[in-house]
């Protein structure tokens, strides 16, 4: 651009303003400063609409529709769950890349890398917690997205294929979450994944199942090779597959448009692509602002939750020799664990989930109902709700509350001081465990009211099991807290009882607790006690 003649013609100020406006328009991919001002004021666009330019100029905008039907832009129509799933995938990718910097997928290093990440990397715990929370939220949001689509009947023609890709995306999300589970190489990870892959073993015929299991684990048992394979699945193969299906899914969503509320659209009718001019809501600026503000707000909530209420768990290092009591799958697989408790591995672990998946994919073809209105879809909605309730019941059955009670003595100690994780005793901590011998046959009291609560709980749970279990009579417990080393207390749990035939039985379990140990629950207010000046001394 020849500047000099322009300045001579228009004057310096005008030329400078024109250059500034031109630069602005290039940055915004076609929106001039004046148009931006009109957008922010909420003024309608001129004709032809100058706000469509960025959709053809900018790559990221060209995949977004230029306008939506007014009825689908309302928050309560879609709850923006699809957008949220995509956003969470981006969050997972970003935090995941950061976490990869401090992580090596080898059993020799993985666990100590996690400890280093937690104790030596600024924002390391924060990133890990965001990644973990994001993964759980992503599973929840993708599921809710599917539930919404089901309840509004949006899977019907012409969107059957969109539904199919959506189901595949749900499955990939579950596998992504599950494959990430193994990477910390702690007991939680190791045993959840051992159980998970052992289901693959149940695929009939035996030769197929064994091969699949061997391929997943890289060896008969999970070890270095299995960890590497899960790592590659988690950071490479599954994300790429997800991105592929995401683009197909999103292309179909844009192609057919988001389904309108049932009252405004008949099945098979192409209303989405023929939006009357007066019902159009343009992406720029209205939908864009809505989406951006929604995601900002969501991010803020997530940051607050991670900063104060959520901590990803890290148990002891994986030990193939010892299965911790009450090994559980992640919550989104509780239903599967519940089914496994009532049926054998082949039926509950392979055939039923397989049938469920096929059913899910086939829903658009099984449902002949031509209407999307709720009042015409009683059967579909009722069966959907029933399926949801069954899932919740199965999930409850998957928790340790259902049908895996061990011996009463084991359970009593497990409640107060579990083999893995926090439990009441570790939560109150070293400082609140006065040395001494505490016998439940005596009246127990402690000046420390947190410890008094532990003793109370100890007595009550012994009494409760005494009443419930005929093989557990005249029971009493002794808790012996002694100083084992400087800053290290030993808690010896002794439980004595008479079995049904009158034989004396004893259970003995030693735990150690160090002054500096912090144990936490995954959900709940974060422990900020480290901000207080260190308590002096000890016993």
């Amino acid at each position, binding site marked *: 651009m020849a500047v000099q003649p322009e300045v001579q013609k228009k004057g310096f100020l005008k030329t400078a303003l024109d250059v500034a406006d031109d630069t602005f328009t290039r940055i915004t991919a076609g929106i001039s400063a004046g148009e931006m001002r009109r*957008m*922010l*004021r*909420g003024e309608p666009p001129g004709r032809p609409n100058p706000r469509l330019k960025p959709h053809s100029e900018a790559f990221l905008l060209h995949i977004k529709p230029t306008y939506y039907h*007014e*009825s689908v832009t309302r928050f*309560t129509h879609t709850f923006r769950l699809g957008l949220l799933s995509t956003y969470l995938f981006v969050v997972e990718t970003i935090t995941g890349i950061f976490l990869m910097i401090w992580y090596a997928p080898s059993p*020799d290093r993985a*666990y*100590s890398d996690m*400890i280093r990440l*937690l*104790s*030596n*990397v*600024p*924002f*390391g*715990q*924060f990133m890990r917690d965001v990644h973990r929370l994001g993964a759980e939220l992503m599973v929840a949001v993708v599921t809710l997205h599917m539930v919404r689509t089901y309840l509004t009947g949006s899977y019907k023609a012409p969107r059957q294929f969109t539904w199919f890709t959506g189901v595949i995306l749900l499955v990939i999300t579950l596998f992504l979450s599950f494959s990430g589970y193994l990477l910390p190489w702690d007991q939680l990870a190791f045993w959840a994944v051992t159980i998970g892959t052992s289901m693959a073993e149940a695929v009939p015929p035996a030769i197929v199942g064994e091969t699949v299991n061997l391929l997943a684990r890289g060896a008969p048992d999970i070890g270095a090779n299995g960890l590497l394979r899960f790592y590659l699945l988690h950071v490479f193969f599954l994300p790429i597959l997800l991105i592929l299906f995401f683009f197909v899914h999103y292309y179909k969503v844009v192609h057919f448009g988001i389904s309108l509320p049932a009252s405004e659209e008949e099945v098979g009718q192409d209303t989405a692509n023929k939006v009357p001019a007066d019902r159009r809501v343009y992406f720029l*600026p*209205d939908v864009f*602002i*809505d989406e*951006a*503000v929604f995601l*900002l*707000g969501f*991010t*803020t909530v997530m*940051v*607050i939750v991670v*900063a104060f209420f959520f901590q990803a768990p890290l148990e*002891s*290092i994986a*030990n193939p020799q010892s299965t911790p009591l009450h090994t559980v799958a992640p919550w989104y697989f509780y239903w599967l664990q519940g089914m496994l408790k009532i049926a054998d591995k082949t039926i509950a672990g392979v055939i039923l989930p397989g049938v469920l998946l096929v059913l899910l994919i086939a829903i658009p073809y099984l449902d002949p109902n031509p209407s999307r209105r709720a009042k015409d879809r009683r059967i579909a909605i009722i069966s959907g709700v029933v399926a949801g309730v069954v899932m919740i019941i199965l999930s409850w059955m998957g928790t340790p509350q259902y049908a895996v009670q061990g011996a009463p003595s084991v359970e009593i100690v497990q409640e107060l001081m579990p083999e893995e994780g926090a439990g009441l005793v570790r939560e109150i901590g070293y400082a609140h465990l006065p040395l001494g011998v505490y016998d439940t046959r005596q009246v127990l009291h402690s000046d420390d009211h947190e410890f008094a609560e532990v003793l109370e709980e100890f007595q009550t749970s012994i009494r409760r099991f005494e009443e419930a279990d005929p093989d557990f009579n005249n029971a009493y417990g002794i808790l012996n807290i002694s100083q*084992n*080393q*400087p*800053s*290290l207390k*030993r808690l010896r749990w002794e439980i004595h009882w008479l079995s049904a035939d009158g034989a004396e039985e004893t259970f003995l379990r*030693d*735990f*150690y*607790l*160090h*002054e*500096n*140990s*912090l144990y936490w629950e995954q959900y709940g207010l974060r422990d*900020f006690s*480290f*901000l207080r000046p260190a308590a002096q001394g000890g016993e």
Partner: protein
Amino acid sequence: MRKPWYAYLYVKSPIIKIILGILSAMVAVAVLLFVGLVDGPRMQAQTANWDGRAIEKGAETYANNCASCHGLDGKGIPGPALNSRYFFTQRLNDIGFTGSLYDYVELTVAAGRPSKANSQWGVMMATWGAEYGGPLRADEVANVAAYVMNWEADALQQTAETDPWIPFQDTPSRGSPYEGAEQAAAAPAEPRAPSELFVSMACSGCHILDQPQTDTNRGLVGPNFGNLLENAAQRVEGQSAAEYIHNSIVNTNAYIVDGYMPNIMPQDFAQRMSEEEINALVEWLLDPDRQP
């Protein structure tokens, strides 16, 4: 289109929406700032936490595998005591191990201890580490070592009467952590001769005394010392040859001559030699008439 009952929640103005977005972003940034501010103490607490948990795990492994010989309280019988002042202060010196006590414990647990056929101890220390055929994984060995090290505060309180240590017959003690040590601290040890230090501190391994350091005649690992007096004086502006050599011994990575690698020269000379010895060594190195 009928308006739903919650229609009042709708925000219409784009400006208000944007302001809400900015406010929420500011809240997020504030929370992130808070997280960043407490991250230092948090990392410290986490470091202490995992050290503590390692000791807890080590305690369980110790009780199951080690306590039968070394005692639940670590005071030995039938095996050697670990919760012992001698063990924490004198043991390394007596066996001539230059690593840390933690390394010594970890190594001994993992690899076992060579022992004579007629040892005074009834049972031999086995090789516990999985890499040497034992039952414990490397992390379990490390935890046991952390647990043993945690006796230090207790052990250092012990006196000659309460220390449960039983001397090893095959490694006679060079001193006692009690009266002898106090005497040794009171009367400073005889300074060692520079020519002896030059060999015992392993200087002679890399620095050749009778070869000059020139462009065509360079020491392989460290510079030659034949013309040290001339070279050292020119190395760093404002430092005399003596100051330069002294600094290079005390802080070995402070100046690296071009073409040589840092971190080759041991960094603990200041602990292993007294100030007097270092000064004598510097003087000897710069002495043109030095006698080997």
